Protein backbone atom coordinates (compact mmCIF):
# COMPACT_ATOMS: atom_id res chain seq x y z
CA UNK A 1 0.00 0.00 0.00
CA UNK A 2 1.41 3.37 -1.01
CA UNK A 3 2.09 5.72 1.90
CA UNK A 4 -0.02 8.86 2.08
CA UNK A 5 1.92 11.93 1.10
CA UNK A 6 1.35 15.54 2.02
CA UNK A 7 0.69 17.67 0.11
CA UNK A 8 -1.44 15.17 -1.83
CA UNK A 9 -0.26 14.07 -5.26
CA UNK A 10 -2.04 15.81 -8.17
CA UNK A 11 -3.43 12.47 -9.43
CA UNK A 12 -5.00 11.67 -6.04
CA UNK A 13 -6.27 15.23 -5.71
CA UNK A 14 -7.88 14.92 -9.14
CA UNK A 15 -9.42 11.53 -8.38
CA UNK A 16 -10.86 12.38 -5.00
CA UNK A 17 -11.46 16.12 -5.48
CA UNK A 18 -15.08 15.55 -6.53
CA UNK A 19 -16.09 13.24 -3.65
CA UNK A 20 -14.25 15.48 -1.15
CA UNK A 21 -16.06 18.54 -2.48
CA UNK A 22 -19.35 16.61 -2.29
CA UNK A 23 -18.72 15.71 1.36
CA UNK A 24 -17.80 19.30 2.23
CA UNK A 25 -20.94 20.62 0.54
CA UNK A 26 -23.21 18.11 2.25
CA UNK A 27 -21.69 19.03 5.61
CA UNK A 28 -22.14 22.75 4.94
CA UNK A 29 -25.77 22.29 3.86
CA UNK A 30 -26.45 20.13 6.90
CA UNK A 31 -25.05 22.86 9.16
CA UNK A 32 -27.41 25.39 7.58
CA UNK A 33 -30.62 23.38 7.29
CA UNK A 34 -30.49 21.30 10.48
CA UNK A 35 -31.38 22.69 13.90
CA UNK A 36 -30.41 24.87 15.72
CA UNK A 37 -29.25 27.03 12.78
CA UNK A 38 -32.41 26.26 10.80
CA UNK A 39 -34.64 28.00 13.32
CA UNK A 40 -32.76 31.28 13.06
CA UNK A 41 -33.02 32.02 9.35
CA UNK A 42 -35.50 31.59 6.48
CA UNK A 43 -32.51 30.63 4.36
CA UNK A 44 -32.72 27.03 5.62
CA UNK A 45 -36.36 26.81 4.57
CA UNK A 46 -35.57 28.27 1.15
CA UNK A 47 -32.66 25.86 0.56
CA UNK A 48 -34.79 22.81 1.35
CA UNK A 49 -37.90 23.98 -0.51
CA UNK A 50 -36.30 25.58 -3.54
CA UNK A 51 -32.57 25.07 -4.08
CA UNK A 52 -32.61 21.33 -3.34
CA UNK A 53 -35.88 20.35 -5.01
CA UNK A 54 -35.77 17.68 -7.74
CA UNK A 55 -36.95 20.24 -10.28
CA UNK A 56 -33.85 22.35 -9.62
CA UNK A 57 -31.32 19.58 -9.06
CA UNK A 58 -32.03 17.34 -12.06
CA UNK A 59 -30.89 19.76 -14.80
CA UNK A 60 -27.78 20.56 -12.77
CA UNK A 61 -26.96 16.87 -12.35
CA UNK A 62 -27.46 16.38 -16.08
CA UNK A 63 -25.23 19.33 -16.88
CA UNK A 64 -22.52 17.87 -14.66
CA UNK A 65 -22.76 14.57 -16.54
CA UNK A 66 -22.58 16.35 -19.90
CA UNK A 67 -19.52 18.32 -18.80
CA UNK A 68 -17.86 15.11 -17.60
CA UNK A 69 -18.30 13.44 -20.98
CA UNK A 70 -16.74 16.19 -23.09
CA UNK A 71 -13.13 17.22 -23.55
CA UNK A 72 -11.56 19.49 -20.92
CA UNK A 73 -11.51 22.61 -23.11
CA UNK A 74 -15.16 22.33 -24.12
CA UNK A 75 -16.11 21.49 -20.53
CA UNK A 76 -14.32 24.56 -19.20
CA UNK A 77 -15.87 26.76 -21.89
CA UNK A 78 -19.34 25.37 -21.12
CA UNK A 79 -18.80 25.85 -17.38
CA UNK A 80 -17.74 29.43 -18.02
CA UNK A 81 -20.82 30.03 -20.18
CA UNK A 82 -22.98 28.46 -17.45
CA UNK A 83 -21.60 31.08 -15.03
CA UNK A 84 -22.08 33.86 -17.60
CA UNK A 85 -25.65 32.62 -18.08
CA UNK A 86 -26.27 32.91 -14.34
CA UNK A 87 -24.99 36.50 -14.31
CA UNK A 88 -27.00 37.33 -17.43
CA UNK A 89 -30.11 35.80 -15.87
CA UNK A 90 -29.78 37.99 -12.78
CA UNK A 91 -29.01 41.16 -14.73
CA UNK A 92 -31.73 40.72 -17.37
CA UNK A 93 -34.33 38.86 -15.33
CA UNK A 94 -37.09 41.40 -15.97
CA UNK A 95 -36.66 41.20 -19.74
CA UNK A 96 -36.32 37.40 -19.69
CA UNK A 97 -39.35 36.87 -17.45
CA UNK A 98 -41.62 39.21 -19.39
CA UNK A 99 -42.52 36.77 -22.21
CA UNK A 100 -42.82 33.94 -19.68
CA UNK A 101 -45.38 35.84 -17.61
CA UNK A 102 -47.91 35.52 -20.47
CA UNK A 103 -48.17 31.78 -19.89
CA UNK A 104 -51.08 30.53 -17.79
CA UNK A 105 -50.39 29.97 -14.07
CA UNK A 106 -46.83 31.25 -14.56
CA UNK A 107 -46.14 31.71 -10.86
CA UNK A 108 -47.15 28.14 -9.96
CA UNK A 109 -44.50 26.56 -12.19
CA UNK A 110 -41.80 29.19 -11.62
CA UNK A 111 -42.21 30.57 -15.13
CA UNK A 112 -41.29 27.18 -16.64
CA UNK A 113 -37.64 27.62 -15.65
CA UNK A 114 -37.36 23.98 -14.57
CA UNK A 115 -38.80 22.45 -17.77
CA UNK A 116 -36.73 24.74 -20.03
CA UNK A 117 -33.52 23.87 -18.16
CA UNK A 118 -34.38 20.15 -18.23
CA UNK A 119 -35.00 20.13 -21.98
CA UNK A 120 -31.84 22.17 -22.69
CA UNK A 121 -29.63 19.84 -20.67
CA UNK A 122 -31.37 16.75 -22.06
CA UNK A 123 -30.62 17.95 -25.59
CA UNK A 124 -26.95 18.22 -24.61
CA UNK A 125 -26.82 14.64 -23.30
CA UNK A 126 -28.41 12.65 -26.14
CA UNK A 127 -26.28 13.50 -29.22
CA UNK A 128 -22.95 11.82 -30.04
CA UNK A 129 -19.76 13.30 -28.58
CA UNK A 130 -18.96 15.58 -31.53
CA UNK A 131 -22.40 17.15 -31.65
CA UNK A 132 -22.49 17.42 -27.89
CA UNK A 133 -19.29 19.47 -27.95
CA UNK A 134 -20.89 21.82 -30.47
CA UNK A 135 -24.15 22.44 -28.59
CA UNK A 136 -23.08 22.11 -24.96
CA UNK A 137 -21.77 25.68 -24.40
CA UNK A 138 -24.98 27.27 -25.67
CA UNK A 139 -27.19 24.88 -23.72
CA UNK A 140 -25.08 25.42 -20.58
CA UNK A 141 -25.68 29.17 -20.99
CA UNK A 142 -29.45 28.55 -21.16
CA UNK A 143 -29.27 26.33 -18.06
CA UNK A 144 -27.37 29.09 -16.22
CA UNK A 145 -30.02 31.67 -17.19
CA UNK A 146 -32.80 29.40 -15.98
CA UNK A 147 -31.03 28.77 -12.67
CA UNK A 148 -30.75 32.51 -12.08
CA UNK A 149 -34.40 33.10 -13.00
CA UNK A 150 -35.55 30.27 -10.75
CA UNK A 151 -33.60 31.81 -7.86
CA UNK A 152 -35.11 35.25 -8.56
CA UNK A 153 -38.71 34.04 -8.72
CA UNK A 154 -38.48 31.83 -5.63
CA UNK A 155 -36.45 34.19 -3.45
CA UNK A 156 -38.76 35.24 -0.60
CA UNK A 157 -36.43 37.94 0.70
CA UNK A 158 -36.56 40.21 -2.40
CA UNK A 159 -33.48 42.28 -1.56
CA UNK A 160 -31.38 40.04 0.68
CA UNK A 161 -28.44 38.75 -1.42
CA UNK A 162 -27.89 35.75 0.91
CA UNK A 163 -30.44 33.55 -0.86
CA UNK A 164 -29.04 34.36 -4.28
CA UNK A 165 -25.50 33.62 -3.20
CA UNK A 166 -26.61 30.37 -1.60
CA UNK A 167 -28.62 29.34 -4.68
CA UNK A 168 -25.74 30.02 -7.07
CA UNK A 169 -23.23 28.31 -4.79
CA UNK A 170 -25.40 25.19 -4.51
CA UNK A 171 -25.97 25.14 -8.28
CA UNK A 172 -22.28 25.44 -9.08
CA UNK A 173 -21.43 22.92 -6.38
CA UNK A 174 -23.76 20.28 -7.86
CA UNK A 175 -22.42 20.77 -11.39
CA UNK A 176 -18.75 20.74 -10.39
CA UNK A 177 -19.06 17.78 -8.01
CA UNK A 178 -20.79 15.61 -10.62
CA UNK A 179 -18.35 16.68 -13.33
CA UNK A 180 -15.21 16.03 -11.27
CA UNK A 181 -16.46 12.72 -9.85
CA UNK A 182 -17.56 11.25 -13.17
CA UNK A 183 -14.38 12.41 -14.88
CA UNK A 184 -12.23 10.77 -12.22
CA UNK A 185 -14.16 7.49 -12.21
CA UNK A 186 -15.01 7.32 -15.88
CA UNK A 187 -16.48 4.07 -17.23
CA UNK A 188 -17.42 3.19 -20.83
CA UNK A 189 -21.10 2.67 -19.91
CA UNK A 190 -21.40 6.33 -18.88
CA UNK A 191 -22.08 7.10 -22.56
CA UNK A 192 -25.17 4.85 -22.51
CA UNK A 193 -26.27 6.19 -19.13
CA UNK A 194 -25.92 9.81 -20.25
CA UNK A 195 -28.21 9.28 -23.23
CA UNK A 196 -30.85 7.61 -21.10
CA UNK A 197 -30.55 10.44 -18.57
CA UNK A 198 -30.94 12.93 -21.41
CA UNK A 199 -34.15 11.26 -22.56
CA UNK A 200 -35.47 11.36 -18.97
CA UNK A 201 -34.71 15.06 -18.71
CA UNK A 202 -36.46 15.87 -21.98
CA UNK A 203 -39.44 13.73 -21.00
CA UNK A 204 -39.58 15.38 -17.57
CA UNK A 205 -39.35 18.84 -19.11
CA UNK A 206 -42.11 18.16 -21.63
CA UNK A 207 -44.41 16.42 -19.15
CA UNK A 208 -43.79 19.00 -16.43
CA UNK A 209 -44.31 21.84 -18.88
CA UNK A 210 -47.41 20.20 -20.32
CA UNK A 211 -48.90 19.53 -16.92
CA UNK A 212 -48.08 23.02 -15.70
CA UNK A 213 -49.86 24.62 -18.63
CA UNK A 214 -52.82 22.24 -18.43
CA UNK A 215 -55.83 23.35 -16.35
CA UNK A 216 -56.21 21.22 -13.22
CA UNK A 217 -58.90 18.58 -13.31
CA UNK A 218 -61.07 18.38 -10.27
CA UNK A 219 -60.76 15.01 -8.53
CA UNK A 220 -63.84 12.79 -8.77
CA UNK A 221 -66.41 13.65 -6.10
CA UNK A 222 -66.39 11.43 -3.03
CA UNK A 223 -69.23 8.94 -2.65
CA UNK A 224 -72.25 10.29 -0.74
CA UNK A 225 -72.02 9.85 3.00
CA UNK A 226 -74.79 7.56 4.27
CA UNK A 227 -77.07 8.90 6.95
CA UNK A 228 -75.51 7.58 10.13
CA UNK A 229 -78.15 9.11 12.38
CA UNK A 230 -81.43 7.30 11.79
CA UNK A 231 -83.00 8.70 14.96
CA UNK A 232 -85.19 11.81 14.58
CA UNK A 233 -83.99 15.10 15.96
CA UNK A 234 -86.38 15.45 18.91
CA UNK A 235 -85.00 18.76 20.11
CA UNK A 236 -85.56 20.82 16.98
CA UNK A 237 -88.82 19.61 15.48
CA UNK A 238 -92.12 20.16 17.06
CA UNK A 239 -94.33 17.07 17.30
CA UNK A 240 -96.99 18.55 15.00
CA UNK A 241 -98.28 15.16 13.88
CA UNK A 242 -99.27 14.24 17.39
CA UNK A 243 -102.90 14.80 18.37
CA UNK A 244 -103.52 17.87 20.51
Amino acid sequence: MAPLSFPPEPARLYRFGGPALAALGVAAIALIVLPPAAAESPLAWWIVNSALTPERLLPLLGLGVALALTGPRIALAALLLFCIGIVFGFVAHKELLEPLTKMPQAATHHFLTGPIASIAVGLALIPPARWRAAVLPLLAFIAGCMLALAIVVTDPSLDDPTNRIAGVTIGLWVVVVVMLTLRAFHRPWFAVFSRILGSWLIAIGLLYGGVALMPRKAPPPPPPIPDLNPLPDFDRSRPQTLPQ
Partner: protein
Amino acid sequence: MRDRGPANRAFFLSAVILVAFVAPQAAFAHILQGEQGGFGAGFAHPLTGPDHFLAMFAVGLWGAQMGGRSVWTLPVTFPLIMVLGGVAGMLGLPFVGVEIGIAVSILALGAAIAFGWHPVEWAALCLIAFFALCHGYAHGAELPLSTDPADYAIGFVLATGMIHIFGIGVGLALHKPMGGRLARGLGALIALGGIYFLGAAVLSA
Protein backbone atom coordinates in the same frame (compact mmCIF):
# COMPACT_ATOMS: atom_id res chain seq x y z
CA MET B 1 -15.79 -25.89 -16.42
CA ARG B 2 -16.88 -22.28 -16.62
CA ASP B 3 -17.94 -20.50 -13.49
CA ARG B 4 -21.62 -19.75 -13.96
CA GLY B 5 -22.17 -18.60 -10.40
CA PRO B 6 -22.54 -14.83 -10.98
CA ALA B 7 -24.84 -15.31 -13.97
CA ASN B 8 -27.03 -17.77 -12.12
CA ARG B 9 -27.18 -15.45 -9.14
CA ALA B 10 -28.14 -12.54 -11.42
CA PHE B 11 -30.87 -14.66 -13.02
CA PHE B 12 -32.37 -15.83 -9.76
CA LEU B 13 -32.10 -12.37 -8.21
CA SER B 14 -33.91 -10.88 -11.19
CA ALA B 15 -36.55 -13.61 -11.15
CA VAL B 16 -37.14 -13.11 -7.43
CA ILE B 17 -37.41 -9.35 -7.87
CA LEU B 18 -39.85 -9.77 -10.75
CA VAL B 19 -42.05 -12.15 -8.79
CA ALA B 20 -41.82 -10.01 -5.65
CA PHE B 21 -42.94 -6.93 -7.56
CA VAL B 22 -45.59 -8.61 -9.64
CA ALA B 23 -47.28 -11.17 -7.43
CA PRO B 24 -48.67 -9.29 -4.45
CA GLN B 25 -49.72 -6.12 -6.24
CA ALA B 26 -50.98 -7.43 -9.56
CA ALA B 27 -54.47 -6.25 -8.79
CA PHE B 28 -53.38 -2.64 -8.35
CA ALA B 29 -52.05 -2.07 -11.85
CA HIS B 30 -53.26 1.14 -13.48
CA ILE B 31 -56.25 1.64 -11.25
CA LEU B 32 -55.18 4.93 -9.76
CA GLN B 33 -58.23 6.99 -8.98
CA GLY B 34 -58.81 10.21 -7.14
CA GLU B 35 -56.16 12.54 -5.77
CA GLN B 36 -52.55 11.36 -6.06
CA GLY B 37 -49.44 12.65 -4.32
CA GLY B 38 -46.30 14.39 -5.56
CA PHE B 39 -42.75 13.19 -6.17
CA GLY B 40 -42.96 10.17 -3.87
CA ALA B 41 -46.20 8.91 -5.41
CA GLY B 42 -44.84 9.42 -8.93
CA PHE B 43 -41.60 7.64 -8.08
CA ALA B 44 -43.39 4.75 -6.40
CA HIS B 45 -45.98 4.22 -9.13
CA PRO B 46 -43.78 2.49 -11.76
CA LEU B 47 -42.11 0.45 -9.03
CA THR B 48 -45.37 -0.72 -7.50
CA GLY B 49 -47.39 -1.02 -10.71
CA PRO B 50 -46.31 -4.47 -11.92
CA ASP B 51 -47.46 -4.04 -15.52
CA HIS B 52 -45.44 -0.86 -15.91
CA PHE B 53 -42.46 -2.38 -14.11
CA LEU B 54 -42.41 -5.49 -16.32
CA ALA B 55 -42.68 -3.50 -19.55
CA MET B 56 -39.90 -1.08 -18.58
CA PHE B 57 -37.68 -3.90 -17.41
CA ALA B 58 -38.31 -5.77 -20.67
CA VAL B 59 -37.38 -2.72 -22.75
CA GLY B 60 -33.97 -2.55 -21.08
CA LEU B 61 -33.49 -6.31 -21.20
CA TRP B 62 -34.42 -6.53 -24.89
CA GLY B 63 -32.12 -3.64 -25.81
CA ALA B 64 -29.22 -5.30 -24.00
CA GLN B 65 -30.01 -8.64 -25.64
CA MET B 66 -30.03 -7.05 -29.11
CA GLY B 67 -26.72 -5.30 -28.41
CA GLY B 68 -25.07 -2.49 -30.35
CA ARG B 69 -26.92 0.82 -30.56
CA SER B 70 -30.12 -0.83 -29.41
CA VAL B 71 -28.76 -0.90 -25.85
CA TRP B 72 -29.51 2.81 -25.65
CA THR B 73 -31.84 3.61 -28.56
CA LEU B 74 -34.70 1.53 -27.14
CA PRO B 75 -34.63 3.00 -23.59
CA VAL B 76 -34.09 6.52 -24.99
CA THR B 77 -37.00 6.24 -27.43
CA PHE B 78 -39.43 4.93 -24.84
CA PRO B 79 -39.74 8.00 -22.54
CA LEU B 80 -39.65 10.45 -25.44
CA ILE B 81 -42.60 8.78 -27.19
CA MET B 82 -44.25 8.19 -23.82
CA VAL B 83 -44.50 11.97 -23.52
CA LEU B 84 -46.70 12.09 -26.64
CA GLY B 85 -48.99 9.47 -25.15
CA GLY B 86 -48.93 11.38 -21.87
CA VAL B 87 -50.03 14.61 -23.54
CA ALA B 88 -52.83 12.72 -25.32
CA GLY B 89 -53.92 11.33 -21.96
CA MET B 90 -53.80 14.74 -20.30
CA LEU B 91 -55.91 16.22 -23.10
CA GLY B 92 -58.37 13.34 -22.79
CA LEU B 93 -58.05 12.34 -26.46
CA PRO B 94 -59.76 9.03 -27.24
CA PHE B 95 -57.48 5.97 -27.17
CA VAL B 96 -59.33 2.67 -27.26
CA GLY B 97 -57.94 -0.39 -25.51
CA VAL B 98 -55.09 1.19 -23.57
CA GLU B 99 -55.04 -1.52 -20.89
CA ILE B 100 -55.02 -4.23 -23.56
CA GLY B 101 -52.19 -2.41 -25.34
CA ILE B 102 -50.19 -2.32 -22.11
CA ALA B 103 -50.75 -6.04 -21.54
CA VAL B 104 -49.81 -6.83 -25.15
CA SER B 105 -46.62 -4.79 -24.71
CA ILE B 106 -45.54 -7.02 -21.81
CA LEU B 107 -46.44 -10.17 -23.71
CA ALA B 108 -44.73 -9.06 -26.95
CA LEU B 109 -41.56 -7.80 -25.29
CA GLY B 110 -41.31 -10.94 -23.14
CA ALA B 111 -41.82 -13.14 -26.18
CA ALA B 112 -39.24 -11.17 -28.18
CA ILE B 113 -36.69 -11.77 -25.42
CA ALA B 114 -37.70 -15.40 -24.94
CA PHE B 115 -37.30 -16.19 -28.65
CA GLY B 116 -34.22 -14.00 -29.05
CA TRP B 117 -35.92 -11.97 -31.77
CA HIS B 118 -33.52 -9.40 -33.22
CA PRO B 119 -35.40 -7.31 -35.79
CA VAL B 120 -33.89 -4.36 -37.65
CA GLU B 121 -33.53 -1.36 -35.39
CA TRP B 122 -36.31 0.76 -36.91
CA ALA B 123 -38.81 -2.09 -36.54
CA ALA B 124 -37.90 -2.51 -32.87
CA LEU B 125 -38.18 1.24 -32.36
CA CYS B 126 -41.62 1.37 -34.01
CA LEU B 127 -42.82 -1.43 -31.74
CA ILE B 128 -41.37 0.30 -28.67
CA ALA B 129 -42.94 3.59 -29.75
CA PHE B 130 -46.42 2.08 -29.97
CA PHE B 131 -46.10 0.49 -26.55
CA ALA B 132 -44.75 3.76 -25.14
CA LEU B 133 -47.87 5.55 -26.41
CA CYS B 134 -50.08 3.10 -24.49
CA HIS B 135 -48.11 3.48 -21.25
CA GLY B 136 -47.81 7.25 -21.64
CA TYR B 137 -51.54 7.66 -22.24
CA ALA B 138 -52.44 5.72 -19.10
CA HIS B 139 -50.15 7.84 -16.94
CA GLY B 140 -50.94 11.12 -18.68
CA ALA B 141 -54.61 10.64 -17.84
CA GLU B 142 -53.66 10.35 -14.16
CA LEU B 143 -51.26 13.30 -14.03
CA PRO B 144 -53.71 16.21 -13.75
CA LEU B 145 -55.34 14.48 -10.78
CA SER B 146 -52.21 14.53 -8.64
CA THR B 147 -51.71 17.11 -5.93
CA ASP B 148 -48.39 18.15 -7.47
CA PRO B 149 -48.43 17.03 -11.12
CA ALA B 150 -44.97 18.40 -11.88
CA ASP B 151 -43.26 16.54 -9.05
CA TYR B 152 -45.36 13.47 -9.84
CA ALA B 153 -44.05 13.57 -13.44
CA ILE B 154 -40.45 13.96 -12.28
CA GLY B 155 -40.67 11.02 -9.88
CA PHE B 156 -42.48 8.89 -12.39
CA VAL B 157 -39.98 9.42 -15.23
CA LEU B 158 -37.00 8.97 -12.90
CA ALA B 159 -38.27 5.63 -11.64
CA THR B 160 -39.06 4.53 -15.18
CA GLY B 161 -35.51 5.31 -16.28
CA MET B 162 -34.08 3.45 -13.31
CA ILE B 163 -36.07 0.34 -14.24
CA HIS B 164 -34.68 0.63 -17.80
CA ILE B 165 -31.16 0.76 -16.44
CA PHE B 166 -31.88 -2.21 -14.18
CA GLY B 167 -33.12 -4.13 -17.23
CA ILE B 168 -30.03 -3.18 -19.23
CA GLY B 169 -27.76 -4.24 -16.38
CA VAL B 170 -29.48 -7.60 -16.00
CA GLY B 171 -29.51 -8.06 -19.78
CA LEU B 172 -25.79 -7.36 -20.10
CA ALA B 173 -25.00 -9.66 -17.15
CA LEU B 174 -27.04 -12.51 -18.66
CA HIS B 175 -26.09 -11.94 -22.29
CA LYS B 176 -23.14 -14.34 -22.56
CA PRO B 177 -23.49 -17.03 -19.86
CA MET B 178 -25.18 -20.24 -21.04
CA GLY B 179 -25.60 -18.78 -24.52
CA GLY B 180 -28.09 -16.18 -23.30
CA ARG B 181 -30.61 -18.81 -22.17
CA LEU B 182 -30.98 -17.18 -18.76
CA ALA B 183 -32.08 -13.93 -20.36
CA ARG B 184 -34.52 -15.87 -22.52
CA GLY B 185 -35.89 -17.56 -19.43
CA LEU B 186 -36.56 -14.17 -17.88
CA GLY B 187 -38.26 -13.15 -21.12
CA ALA B 188 -40.53 -16.20 -20.84
CA LEU B 189 -41.44 -15.20 -17.27
CA ILE B 190 -42.26 -11.68 -18.48
CA ALA B 191 -44.39 -13.10 -21.30
CA LEU B 192 -46.32 -15.19 -18.76
CA GLY B 193 -46.97 -12.00 -16.83
CA GLY B 194 -48.18 -10.44 -20.06
CA ILE B 195 -50.64 -13.30 -20.60
CA TYR B 196 -52.00 -12.74 -17.10
CA PHE B 197 -52.44 -9.00 -17.64
CA LEU B 198 -53.97 -9.57 -21.06
CA GLY B 199 -56.53 -11.94 -19.59
CA ALA B 200 -57.34 -9.47 -16.83
CA ALA B 201 -57.64 -6.58 -19.31
CA VAL B 202 -59.89 -8.55 -21.67
CA LEU B 203 -62.13 -9.69 -18.84
CA SER B 204 -62.49 -6.18 -17.43
CA ALA B 205 -63.10 -4.60 -20.88
